[in-house]
């Protein structure tokens, strides 16, 4: 029986069927649902690690321990995990080791658009790229066999459209794999210079062997049709190209690193014109050019953003798609902090105080958008604290009294804690606000080391953020409620003026959690003077309808933040404004 599955669910199913025993990951869109799906299989140990580096190290350890193991992350997560990845390429594996990396072409939910294929090339790790859910399952299963056969980690490259599209998958039984025997092997598993040099020779030989495999393997397939046009493509771009070129011959590449040479040459020789259709960087195209094959690719299609069928048709055939038009471009609808979001109180206060806010990655990054518009920077996970410290060292401690860093609980544990240690150790005086909403919010509510629950919902020890900050040497640690606007403002003022490092833990659960406060929807009463100060909160439930301020009862959570900013006692009660 075929079942409709997300690409991410199919990856999990493939790992399950391949007999995987250990999976450690850190959530990140679009990769999160892989590990969430894994957690539903009782036969597999799974966990959320504090960050991707730890996650991959756990998977490498499990592999050395003889188990089939996997680690999953988004593209920028692989940057964090690249340190262990590059050297795991040298050590090779015990049990099969697969690393899934989900790129985000089009940046639906990311801070950059990097192409992970380039990491596979530079880490000299073989990479497979499925183009739908059935291939996700199939490739992951086969990746474990390849990993053990060639003694290498294998990267699986996904993308938003593969990870987050459902298509039909055949389910098979799980094949249990016995643990491989644990063998102490320092020449292979202890990467000191002398041993690592020998392993580097092994890595180069392995790549040669994989190149031979790439010439004739089930992942790279030729579909012979018209000789006029030949298309070389991979992953989701292949699916788009199949619609654009229904009659063309295709070379579909499922193995992205290393790329075959003879197979490509032979394919190109059999057609009049070759198109390479690939999103982001011209990886396949450059390989063709090195082989001396004339192809068309980035000369007509961009290396920015995701592709679509209409765009490729236009670029290749100059055809415009039909479309109805009824006027100007409509106003955009950017994402917003939810009604009842605890971050709203924090950013309202920071804006009121006119502070420079060194920001971080999470739902709260939305604090950079109007009308709160109170975040100044956002670079990568955990960067907020180190960057605020850098501003202080560049511009002096008086300037730094106008600067705070804000970071979520999960992000703080991911890589903010090291920044805080730097501030303390190097005599900074920065103020860090940890937005503790009791969950990893943006990626859809995953537990983390501070929530007190494991990925399977079992109770566990939780990191005590107050004690942790004290332990690294921060003496001034305060806990404050961001919905108590007056109290919160007072705490922020006191801490930014102190001449030593300080941490404020802004504590209130995510509004979408079942445990979050939810009151009756509020209403605007007859006292409203339309001053619109409540609209400065940027709450999606408050808006002007027919010239009057209105609260949308389907969105309002009754958080009463608007009641606190209103000067005319115009919110609450039963009298809806006439």
């Amino acid at each position, binding site marked *: 029986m*075929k*079942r*409709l599955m*997300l690409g991410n669910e199919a990856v999990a199913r493939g790992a399950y069927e391949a007999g995987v025993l250990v999976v450690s990951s850190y959530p990140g*869109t*679009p990769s*999160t*649902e892989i590990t969430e799906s894994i957690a539903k299989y009782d036969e597999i140990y799974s966990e959320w690690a504090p960050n991707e580096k730890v996650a991959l190290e756990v998977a490498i350890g499990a592999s050395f321990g003889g188990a089939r193991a996997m680690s999953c992350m988004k593209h920028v997560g692989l940057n964090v995990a690249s340190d262990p990845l590059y050297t795991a390429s040298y050590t090779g594996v015990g049990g099969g080791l697969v690393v899934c990396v989900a790129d985000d072409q089009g940046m*639906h*939910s990311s801070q950059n658009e990097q192409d992970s294929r380039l990491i596979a090339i530079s880490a000299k790790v073989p990479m497979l790229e499925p183009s*739908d859910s059935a291939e996700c399952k199939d490739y992951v299963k086969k990746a474990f066999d390849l990993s053990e056969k060639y003694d290498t980690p294998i990267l699986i490259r996904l993308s938003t*459209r593969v990870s*987050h*599209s*459902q*298509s*039909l998958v055949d389910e098979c039984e799980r094949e249990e794999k016995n643990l491989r025997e644990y063998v102490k092997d320092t020449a292979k598993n202890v990467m000191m210079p002398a041993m690592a040099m020998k392993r580097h020779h092994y890595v180069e030989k392995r790549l040669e062997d994989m190149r031979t495999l790439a010439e004739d393997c089930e992942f790279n397939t030729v579909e012979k049709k018209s000789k006029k046009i030949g298309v070389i493509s991979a992953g*989701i771009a292949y*699916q*788009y190209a*199949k*619609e654009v070129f229904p009659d063309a011959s295709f070379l579909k590449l499922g193995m992205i690193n290393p790329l075959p040479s003879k197979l490509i040459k032979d394919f190109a020789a059999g057609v009049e014109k070759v198109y390479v259709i690939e999103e982001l960087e011209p990886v396949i195209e450059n390989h063709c050019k090195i082989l001396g094959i004339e192809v068309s690719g980035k000369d007509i299609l961009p290396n920015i953003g995701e592709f*679509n*069928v*209409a765009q490729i*048709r236009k670029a290749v055939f100059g055809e415009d*798609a*039909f*479309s*109805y*038009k*009824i*006027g*100007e471009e*409509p*106003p*955009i*609808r*950017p*994402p*917003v*902090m*939810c009604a009842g979001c605890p971050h709203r109180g924090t950013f309202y206060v920071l804006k009121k105080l006119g502070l420079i806010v060194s920001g971080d990655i999470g*739902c709260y990054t*939305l604090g950079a958008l*109007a*009308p709160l518009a109170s975040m100044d920077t956002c670079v990568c996970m955990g960067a907020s604290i180190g960057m605020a410290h850098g501003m202080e060292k560049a511009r002096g401690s008086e300037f730094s009294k106008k600067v705070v860093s804000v970071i979520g609980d999960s992000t703080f544990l991911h890589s903010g804690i090291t920044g805080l240690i730097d501030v303390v150790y190097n005599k900074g005086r920065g103020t860090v606000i940890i937005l503790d909403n009791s969950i990893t919010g*943006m990626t*859809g509510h995953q537990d983390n080391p501070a929530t007190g629950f494991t990925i399977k919902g079992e109770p566990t020890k939780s990191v005590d953020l107050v004690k942790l900050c004290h332990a690294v040497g921060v003496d001034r640690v305060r806990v404050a409620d961001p919905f108590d606007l007056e109290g919160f403002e007072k705490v922020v003022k006191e801490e930014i003026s102190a001449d030593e490092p300080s941490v404020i833990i802004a504590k209130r659960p995510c509004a979408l959690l079942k445990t979050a406060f939810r009151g009756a929807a509020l209403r605007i009463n007859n006292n409203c003077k339309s001053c619109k100060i409540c*609209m400065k909160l*940027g709450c*999606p439930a*408050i*808006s*002007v*309808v027919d010239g009057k301020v209105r609260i*949308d*009862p*389907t*969105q309002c959570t009754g958080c009463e933040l608007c009641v606190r900013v209103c000067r005319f006692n115009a919110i609450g009660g039963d009298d809806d404004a006439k």
Partner: protein
Amino acid sequence: MQSNIMIVGVGGQGTLLASRILGDVATQLGCDVKVSEVHGMSQRGGSVVTYVKYGDKVYSPVIAEGEADIILAFEQLEAYRYLRYLKKGGMMLINSQKINPMPVITGAAEYPQDIIDKIKNTSAEIIPIDALSLAIEAGNAKAVNVVLIGLLASRTEIDKGIWESALVSCVPPKFLEVNKKAFEIGYNKGMALK
């Protein structure tokens, strides 16, 4: 033969469940199916779109501009935004609800006027309904998505029983009763408008 259906709306309106129900229906028909969803940042009140394609063989999970047979719009502005994906003479099912986006709330932009009338003036077939009121009538304002699925069901050739069994597989048991009612109300509304 291939059917291309888009579901567009605002993050939080339940478009994901609607697309899963539709995906389940297509699977029951024995078709090849692809459903492209939106997860992550856009779900936080942003513009969201899901694509459902089914037929003999489906390649791209995303529907190209000008190729949607039906667009099920959960909100007027989103109907406007995605109209360009509708094929010539395609059908637009619109919930008449309006949700102001943040640029309108802050005064940086205006909510376009007379969207439904403007779409009516094209050659597209358009069916507007007040799905929010119908959802409240069913017993839960959150059931807007299933009211609209009911409306969609009334406009396809697919047997009603298939839709009902998709509802059972996709909706959590404790919400099934209210959603069955919402589906029925949406379906009957669609039949009455024929």
